[in-house]
């Protein structure tokens, strides 16, 4: 393992990391994203796979980056909250817009994980029922909102995306 190079495609950008130098075998994906790549949008809450704040997408599937080892992600496509908006225009993903409009967060700490989880849901099921949303979001804890504003945000995002949303100019 030591000295081997692994490849991560993070938000469409290729990173080559040398094991033993850039990344240690015991480093979690959350640690690598945050501390080595500077992508601090992914939050670490419980750091043991219970709260879901660290949710990112690995090859399109939601994963808990705090209990995923970086070396396991060799060759995989990783999406984080930083990849969702258009940094040049400032345009937001419909989910991000909807979370703002519907008050889908208060403190904002669980929000990146919640949005990534919701993105995985809407990509698999563009018209989720309320129960589909509750089920999908059950692994992302939020202590502020009481969840209902999050459900509303996801329903609103689904509506926006069906209308051909995507990155909209601000």
């Amino acid at each position, binding site marked *: 393992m030591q000295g081997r190079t692994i490849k991560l495609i993070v938000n469409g950008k290729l990173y080559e990391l040398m094991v033993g130098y850039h990344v240690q075998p015991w480093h979690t994906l959350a640690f690598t994203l945050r501390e080595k790549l500077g992508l601090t949008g992914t*939050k670490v809450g419980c750091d043991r796979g219970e709260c879901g704040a660290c949710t990112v997408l690995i090859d399109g599937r939601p994963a808990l980056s705090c209990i995923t080892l970086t070396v396991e992600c060799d060759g995989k496509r990783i999406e984080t909250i930083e990849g969702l908006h258009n940094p040049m225009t400032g345009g937001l993903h419909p989910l991000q817009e909807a979370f703002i409009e519907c008050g889908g967060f208060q403190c*904002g700490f669980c929000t990146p994980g919640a949005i990534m989880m919701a993105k995985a849901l809407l990509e698999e099921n563009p018209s989720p029922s309320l129960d589909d949303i509750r089920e999908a979001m*059950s692994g992302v804890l939020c202590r502020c909102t009481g969840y*209902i504003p999050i459900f509303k945000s996801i329903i609103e995002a689904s509506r926006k995306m069906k209308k051909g949303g995507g990155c909209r100019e601000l």
Partner: protein
Amino acid sequence: MSFKIIKSDEAERRYKEWRILGRPVPDVHGYLKVTGKAKFVDDIILPSITYGKLLRSPFAHAKIKKINTSRAETLPGVVAVVTYEDIAKMGITQKPPRYILTDEVFYVGDVVAAVAAEDEAIAEEALDLIEVEYEPLPFCLTPEEARRAQPMHPDVSKDNMVIGSWPPYQRSVGDVERGFKESNVIVEVNFRKPNLKHMFLENYAVVAEWVGDELHVWTHSQLGATIFAMQLASILNIPTNKIHVHQCFIGGGFGGKYGEALIRLTVLATMLAKKSGRPVKIRTNIREHFVEGHVLDPGITTFKYKAGADNKGELKALEAIMWAGQGERSSNVGVVYVGDTVFSTYRIPNKSFKAYPYYTNTPMSGALRAYGSQAGAIPLELTINELAKALDIDPVELRIKAGIRDGDVITQYLHNEFQLAGGDLGELVRVSSEEFSWKDKWQGWRASARAQGSKRRGVGVGVAIHSAWGVPWPDNVKDTVIVKVNPNDGTVEWVTGGRDMGSGFDTIISQVIAEVLGVDIRDVARAPPYSVGQPVGGETRASKALQTTVFAAYNAAQDLKRKILEKASLVLNAEPNKLVLDLKNQRVYDIGDPTRAVSLSKLGELFSGVLIGIGSCVSHYGGPESFTDPVTGRRLGMKGLFCAFAEVEVDIDTGKVEVTKLLFSTQAGMVLNPLIVYGQLVGSAVHGLGSILWEGIIYDEKTGTPLNTSFLDYPVPTALDVAEDQISSLVISDPKHARLTPYMAKGIGEAPLAAVWPAIHMAVCNAIGKKIEEFPLRPEKILKALGKAPFPETKGVV
């Protein structure tokens, strides 16, 4: 979820006058939060940063006889080790002095030493290399044990009682004995509550760095940067203006990041950074969440309430006693608030309250969402229900009749009195009961609960009061806001030393400033809060921001507008009230002749300080005459009034409780931002649903160790526990309910939870037809109450 606002005619009129207030303006920090760019403490990564870890006590009470750190210090990668020997006697000056570290540990998880290293793995390895010789001492966890225990701080109190902020914790109004003599029915309730924790998602963390003789600290303290800097200055004994506190976003607080909660962690990071010459980050984990900061004040508590009423349902007397295990220290403010619920929820002529707060070997106790008000509401409401049951009258009718209302004299912080300015608890209960269809659902006290198979349905009601008026601290320092206008484009900036933790007052303040100055909300920016050069303000606690920080912002915006118009009147030779401030075009013009105008740049050039406004809030405590009732001469004050109705389904075979309907309501005054009010109400109610049903720290009786220290073992509500059609909220909007603030609004974010607790609790008791005098209402408690415990009662836990 249904969210209904019932507006009075006067409210309708005011909403129509407003341009930006009263509208669902989204969070002004929304863009930062949804893009992951909002900086929380753990997101601060500095060049050459090191990582701190804390060695924690395995004993609930022990003397440290010897500590040897030499092996840890020589471990490659370790940069600094700090023990009490390095910082002897450093702490907060009060009784007992809170030393950051001493040679004694007071609870399992108390800090023994701190290590900083190149990475967290090395720091953790170093902790294992520190050799500590402990001499275990006797310890106590419950108030019953504490009453008989050796005093924990013998130099402070011989009877092991916590002194706190406002002793003694006793008060009596009227003649309680006579009240009981006049009563036809007398009931008694003995109630027990466990220790509760905040369970915010962002664990306690801090970053500290010394730059020469200046200290930089990144914090998520709810105190705000400026007050936090003053607190640190007094402990570290360095000038306040050398301490640069950078206020980060707060990843959930609920009171848990308030007061002294972050002091120890911050000072340890500061000392590690000083010793190593490197920046240090300490971030705690979820297990440490249960032993860092504080638990709810009051802590593990036994309540003994006795109440009497006559045959007509008139409440005659209430006698309340509580014994609280307050942990290794406490301000006892939560205890004081419990006392306020006794004196200020119902109209009872004779009442008394006595509290016995004891030192126990658990973490200190302090603020947690509506502290004291929620703990006080539940034994009180159970007592009122027992009275209604004994009289066989509808519990809703009793509350409509006896609830406090405008003009009543109520108690504040136990030692002070004021006259309630606005609100009517009985009326709130009446309107809410109609919304809930209580009359259709309530079957009477002796009617059997509606049953289907093993499922039993029950309904309940609960009310609560809470501060909407703030607590004075630190002495005489008022919230202050500074507003600045940019003459080149007319954009506006404002600043104060603290920031909201998601409760939304940064947004409300921006709305207020935009409303006063006549600009678009997008042209108002909130400058990042930072201690140096910025005023005190924006503490996020006690539902106080609408009274204090928003009041200050209103005054600052008015100050700015007044100054600009006054100076423009000199230039334009016109009365100030004939001039219009037109920030969009960066000018002031004459209303009669808009071509007569002066630019902001010109005004800024001619008159110093004209483009900056400063405002403070008026104090409620040593308050001005305008807050005195002209007829009675009494000081006026506000209270948040809350009501909840619940319907539950209990499975009597498994003990599982399902909340099928939950309605919560409040008299909010004017709703300045319905999106925020809605979010706060539902957030608090779901928080309450979790704490009454499942939460509560379980301690091992033999060692004092907290056992359920994770999100799995201390379960909080998840998305699966909330359904949209199950939850509804009702807001009564009438300016007369909050008439002491400029926009006639009051803080409502904390205490819906305090009404939700007794409502769900009563519904469960109603469903199974048994009195339960404790919570959380976990299945084993329900089955125990039903007399069919399938598992032996858990032994050895508190």
